[in-house]
């Protein structure tokens, strides 16, 4: 089995090819405008359909109503309290998953025994839809931070083990041999050769894991929670305040997008020394 590692290339390419290659400020602005224009068209279309009464305001509030509700949510600041809880759960679980997942992935690549012992278990849990764990973890750890973080952790850990393992396995043997022939200890080989060379794969894996972490955290909150944006959105839905519900959804989407962009920036910074340019993973 493989991790579909070519998953994260596309958006980079889509984005890079359209926005990133402008030289002057004005050109950048025009390009950005040209790039974002389709979203403007969709918003206009939405508002027009609402005005014409094609979209019933009971089912789909108009775009302007949603924007107004969004301004209201941001101004009152209540959504931030929930957003912070959700992001904390997603990122804490992700961090745990990255630290332990990278450790196990590297160990699996370097030590045959670890590989033989853990591969079947990892392969078995890799295909498990992680949200299925939510009910049992709620039973064990109760509803709250601990259970959300735990499910997110499992959801991040297993794929990161696999990407790290594949990354470390693909370290060119010649680097390892030359380091060994110069008398490098196997621990140093691991940290100065194998780990850096697996880093592009690991970071691609972490990017996918971050997207899943947010989904899992929100899902757990929708199933049962006292705080968090999943709960926040769900309550608006139940109460029938659809303009607020859509506004909250959009704020969450923008936040998730921002987190993804933040991670891409971090990834590019960490990989400055490689030929890796975000778009290719070879």
């Amino acid at each position, binding site marked *: 089995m493989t991790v*579909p590692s070519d998953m994260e290339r596309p958006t980079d390419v*889509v*984005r890079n090819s359209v926005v990133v290659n402008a030289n002057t400020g004005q050109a950048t602005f025009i390009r950005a405008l040209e790039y974002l224009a389709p979203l403007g068209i969709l918003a206009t279309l939405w508002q027009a359909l609402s005005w014409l009464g094609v979209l019933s305001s009971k089912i789909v509030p108009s775009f302007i109503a949603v924007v107004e509700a969004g301004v209201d949510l941001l101004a009152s600041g209540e959504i931030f309290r929930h957003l912070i809880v959700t992001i904390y759960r997603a990122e804490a679980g992700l961090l745990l998953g990255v630290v332990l997942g990278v450790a196990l992935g590297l160990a699996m690549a370097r030590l045959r025994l670890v590989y033989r012992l853990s591969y079947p278990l990892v392969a078995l849990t890799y295909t498990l839809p992680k949200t*299925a764990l939510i009910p049992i973890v709620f*039973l064990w750890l109760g509803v709250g931070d601990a259970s959300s973080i735990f499910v997110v952790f499992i959801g991040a850990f297993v794929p990161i083990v696999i990407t790290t393992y594949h990354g470390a396995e693909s370290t060119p043997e010649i680097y390892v041999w030359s380091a060994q022939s110069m008398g490098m200890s196997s621990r140093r080989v691991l940290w100065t050769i194998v780990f850096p060379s697996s880093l592009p794969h690991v970071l691609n894996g972490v990017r996918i894991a971050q997207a899943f972490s947010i989904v899992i955290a*929100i899902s757990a909150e929708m199933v049962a929670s006292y705080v968090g944006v999943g709960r926040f959105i769900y309550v608006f839905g139940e109460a029938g305040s659809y303009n607020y519900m859509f506004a909250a*959804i959009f704020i969450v989407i923008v936040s998730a997008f921002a987190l993804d962009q933040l991670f891409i920036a971090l990834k590019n910074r960490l990989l400055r020394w490689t030929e890796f340019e975000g778009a290719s993973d070879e």
Partner: protein
Amino acid sequence: MNSPRYSVLKQRLLGLLPILAILVLWEAASRLRLASPILLPPFSVAMERLVELTVTGELPKALWITTYRSFIGLLVATAAGMSVGLAMARIRSVRWFFSPIVAIGFPLPTITLLPAFTIWFGTDSESKIWLVAFTCFFPIAVSTFEGARNMNKQLMWSAQSMGSHGVALFARVILPASVPFVFSGVRVALPLAVIVTFVAEMVGGGGGLGYLLIYGFRFLQTPTVLAVLVAVLVYGVLLDQLLLRSRLAFLPWDVGDRARDG
């Protein structure tokens, strides 16, 4: 006794050890009352429940409902994602229109839209199918676009130089060359489809495996929760295998993933 077959067997058995250890510890912890039997009933009890759920038909029915929802959703997403991805690769204006949409939609936590889809399409299968389709559309569109965009241009040039144009060029060269990428997209989308279906069933009800799980949780029927979880584990492995096999069946000429799988 060091024949290759023997050592392969030994390796396999070594891999089963941790799984067996977990099951034994689970059974023992519960039987010895180290863990509360309400929260962690013995493995054997969970298995009994699994058999019971299977015999009464509850589990097969839930399995069918969940599979139906995720597969129809995935099918819709594949058709739409493939069309949009190919059109994006070939037609400039389509690429311009969909670029920002796909870039935003790709990391989008679509699960937040669940309440909206429930309002629009009700609590039954339809809302789940559309949410799955919407979620899976993005990875498939992105992957197809990438594939069609970066396909081996020589294939296209030689076909063109030999007189293939328009529909023929598309159907006989571009489409087959991008199918492997459609499959990569589906491979990403399949777990997403199942994850989304599960959550939608847990939150919105309407039957299915997710509903069965959350029902067990609400009524503190831990054996049911664990039994369904074991079934889901097996289900996940089967789905992944199915996808790999169908890839081999559809794309006998493409060894990309197989080579990497080792």
